[in-house]
């Protein structure tokens, strides 16, 4: 019979805490799927600020051996521009297609980030995306053990990506 032993993510999987893995995941997704050169920005607050036209937030749950979420957040105009770049279509407002596109970007960023750590890739599942858009909403996250947040941008577009993780659960034999 086994028991569940929580371990520190920082000790067991340092790659989770390394911002370079998230940077590389974001850069891969944006170069390959949107054809843009996207770079990390110094100030997260610019990307997080509430735009007059509202914001769009996509959340992908991380399950299995790793418990947490990947959160992608941007202003409504940024969302319209991003999905326009990705699809080649023109949008005048945040509609279902734009929300679908932002969810898919979040999904690919989460997948690319996870797949950069082969020891986690096989044991960490991703949920389908949940996307919220509008003004004046708050996203409540549980107090996770670890949170990595970075802002990125290209041209005038700014967005943030957050990885929030709980403790890694590993089954070990119980001592007699």
């Amino acid at each position: 019979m086994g028991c569940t032993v929580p371990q520190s993510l920082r000790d067991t999987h340092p790659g989770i805490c390394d911002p370079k893995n998230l940077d590389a995941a974001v850069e891969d997704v944006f170069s390959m799927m949107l054809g843009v050169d996207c770079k990390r920005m110094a100030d997260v607050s610019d990307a997080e600020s509430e735009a007059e036209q509202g914001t769009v937030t996509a959340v992908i749950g991380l399950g299995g051996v790793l418990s947490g979420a990947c959160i992608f957040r941007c202003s409504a105009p940024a969302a319209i521009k991003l999905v326009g770049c990705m699809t080649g279509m023109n949008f005048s407002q945040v509609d279902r297609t734009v929300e679908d596109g932002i969810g898919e970007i979040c999904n690919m960023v989460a997948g690319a980030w996870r797949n950069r750590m082969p020891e986690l890739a096989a044991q960490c599942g991703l949920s389908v995306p949940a996307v919220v858009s509008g003004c004046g909403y708050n996203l409540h996250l549980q107090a996770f053990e670890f949170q990595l947040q970075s802002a990125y941008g290209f041209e005038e577009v700014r967005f943030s990506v957050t990885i929030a993780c709980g403790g890694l659960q590993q089954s070990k034999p119980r001592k007699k």
Partner: protein
Amino acid sequence: MSEVRVLIVDDSSVMRKIVERSLRQAGLESLVAYEASNGADALEALKNGSVDLILTDINMPSMDGLEFLSRLRSQNLAPGVPVVLITTEGSLDRVKQGIEAGAQHFIHKPFSVEQLRDRVLPLLKTA
């Protein structure tokens, strides 16, 4: 290359459009794209018409890509039609299940046009 009929199966309408556009950029200008948002819809589409190539996501609601592949073969729908998995799936076991169920290749999202060209076009030449 003459007209190529491709069934693209993904729960994201945006991703289906991206795959279609990328295939055209990869050289399939004469592509005729059919879309399905899950495995069950894809099976229905195949009962109503044949295609030359199937690209499918793995993680989808209602019926995922692995179940779709399994039923595709058990119902003998689209015999000999190459199938390529396009997925964020990180588990090689899941991908291996897909290959064993009849997929010829898998491509990770995000993907480049070059990756599509290298892995998909040779399948059409040998199909």
